[in-house]
């Protein structure tokens, strides 16, 4: 395990101290933490890797470090700053986001993590007309799934935060003012019909109350370009639905507006799940569209790029240590050069390549 020390940095406690010198090294996330912080939101291939290696290790990389630096120095009196992680496919945006989330979770922020906004604009069945606003449409399934995960991630806050209004669900049920947020979430989970509204309420309450300073709110949305753009959903009469007409999207849009303070908004663009966007697009302008770009306008873009040589080496070392690369040539310099060329240091590609080595 002397070898392990080379690439690993077991730093549960020292996460706050991730600095420049740790760039390129992996750090370990204990598995219980994983379940608590990431009930949803890890990319599926990474989940498989975690299962195989029986441990979760993320690489510390520059974009994440940069973001952490900003987050550590946020001034909570100012309106929330928006950070947009963008980059080509497979460069590591989602995992960087997960790194940030883990950091903030350790710092005891409240995490509002939407794993993939694209899931909300395509392949939905059961669209109901919203009970709250007749114009809009509900998505009970997606909402309830998200509420369950949200509950797992933020258990301890749900009892602390109190709602500041009375919400009437239907004739028999209502939530009184001052009752904990957990009740709203429960309501959404049990009564699937009201799940979307529950989500809307959660978002509204959190936004309102984060300014009060009880907690810090981190809004993390993956695939935020789904919020503006088109959906693949249609009504029964085959007329297309615009994103605004979906209640979830509408509320989420309100969330990423920077009219509240006490936290930060970290967003990722993703072409992989997006609908109707060309494969090669990765710049914010292209993926968000004019509308999205204007709405998000003052934001800090952070480019996530392919591995640099040091990171590449480190990644290969990690795989070798876990005996993932079984090919006899994988150890040699030639083998590494081959992998370099083929994957062109793209983390996603490298991972896929090594999958059958």
């Amino acid at each position, binding site marked *: 395990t002397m070898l392990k020390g080379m690439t690993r940095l077991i730093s549960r406690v020292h996460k706050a101290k991730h600095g420049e010198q740790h760039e390129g090294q992996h750090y370990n996330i204990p598995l219980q933490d994983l379940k608590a912080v990431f009930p949803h939101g890890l990319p599926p291939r990474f989940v498989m890797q975690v299962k195989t290696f029986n441990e979760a290790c993320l690489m510390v990389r520059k974009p994440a470090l940069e973001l952490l630096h900003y987050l550590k120095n946020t001034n909570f009196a100012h309106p929330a700053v928006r950070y947009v992680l963008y980059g*080509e496919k497979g460069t590591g945006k989602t995992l960087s986001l997960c790194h940030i989330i883990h950091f903030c979770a350790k710092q005891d922020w409240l995490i509002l993590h939407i794993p993939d906004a694209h899931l909300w604009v395509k392949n939905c069945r059961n669209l109901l007309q919203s009970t709250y606003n007749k114009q809009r449409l509900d998505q009970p399934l997606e909402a309830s799934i998200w509420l369950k995960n949200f509950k797992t991630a933020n258990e301890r806050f749900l009892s602390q935060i109190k709602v500041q209004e009375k919400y009437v669900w239907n004739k028999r049920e209502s939530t009184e003012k001052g009752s904990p947020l957990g009740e709203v979430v429960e309501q959404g989970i049990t009564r699937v019909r009201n799940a979307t509204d529950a989500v809307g309420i959660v978002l509204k309450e959190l936004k309102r109350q984060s300014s009060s300073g009880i907690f810090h709110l981190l809004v993390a949305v993956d695939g935020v370009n789904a919020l503006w753009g088109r959906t693949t959903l249609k009504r029964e009469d085959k007329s297309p639905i615009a994103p605004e007409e979906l209640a979830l999207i509408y509320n989420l849009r309100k969330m990423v507006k920077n009219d509240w303070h006490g936290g930060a908004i970290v967003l990722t663009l993703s072409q992989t799940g997006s609908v109707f966007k060309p494969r*090669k697009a990765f710049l914010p302008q292209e993926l968000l569209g004019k509308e999205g770009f204007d709405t998000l306008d003052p934001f800090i873009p952070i480019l996530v790029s392919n591995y640099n040589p040091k990171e590449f080496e480190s990644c290969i070392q990690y795989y070798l240590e876990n005996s993932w690369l079984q090919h006899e040539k994988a150890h040699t310099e*030639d083998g590494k*050069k*081959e992998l370099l*060329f*083929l994957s*062109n240091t793209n983390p996603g590609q490298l991972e*896929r*390549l090594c999958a059958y080595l």
Partner: protein
Amino acid sequence: MAAPCVFCGKAVSYRLFLGARVSLAREQGLWKAAAAEVQTGTASQILRLRHTTVVSTKKNIAALRRETYTLDFIKKQIEEFNIGKRHLANMMGEDPETFTQEDIDRAIAYLFPSGLFEKRARPIMKHPEQIFPKQRAIQWGEDGRPFHFLFYTGKPSYYSLMHEAYGKILDVEKHQNQLRAQGLFSEKTKTKDLIGSRWLIKEELEEILVEKLSDQDYAHFIRLLERLLTLQRGGAEEEFVQRFRRSITIQSKKQLIEPVRYDEQGMAFSRSEGRRKSAEAEAVVYAHGSGRVSVNGTHYLRYFPVTQDREQLMFPFHFLDRLGKHDVACTVSGGGRAAQAGAIRLAVARALCTFVTEEEVEWMRQGSLGQEFRQG
């Protein structure tokens, strides 16, 4: 052909059937004979005529089987071909005197465009000697005596060839003995360059001699020729032997023409092209680089998302162990995804030749430079 069989007798139909592959002249002759029969009338007369005609044509049947085209027929065909060639030249507006076979082929392909996949089924116009299979003329005269003195061996041309070769060997040995007797014999044996040629194969020899050979015959003949080669021989013998050798074009040597690299802005690079299916690629390989490849302006990772294509690109470098040492900028168009990858690979391989001249032979044999021609 079947119509006459209806009202003529069975014998006639049999004869006509035999003569199915007969030339026009023969056919007309028989037809007239058959018509003459019909016109005679009574059954007995027909029978008698039939009988006589059978007898008179008996010999001819045996000859007919072997010789399907008469010499006259072939001569006529040659004349017709030449006249046709001149007509074709006039039609195409070219000079009839200098109208070659390639011109004919092109003209026919132009006038009769055919979409058939089987090239041999398309319309052709070639010299009759290439179209009609070679046959032997009747080998015996009117009285039944054969012309060739070796006719009764069964393979006259083969044995006469063997005689000729052996005769030549004896001549050369006699000449050598004379020289030795005179003391002018020199031991040097000039070895002709036999590398670029090969002996005729058995099928080719059979074609020349127009008779079937067995394997032993063929081996015997080749041994004889080799024995002739070992002796010191003069010009006439040389010519005789060369008749039986075919040259092998060494394809690999033919192909390789690498332009020597040229410089620009102080960077040495080389440019070359490659093609595969219907994709054409032009690659510019820089001598010193870090392994960056850009295709049509975009990075190769974005252009070829499939790993297989990138492996194709990698192959030339990998083979020469120069993975991270060259930069490439290439343009490609046409074809599909894999075809473009193959075309770029070919272009890169050719371009890399200029930097790697010593290993090119090894490389070529591996096939990375050969342009791939696959049918269909």
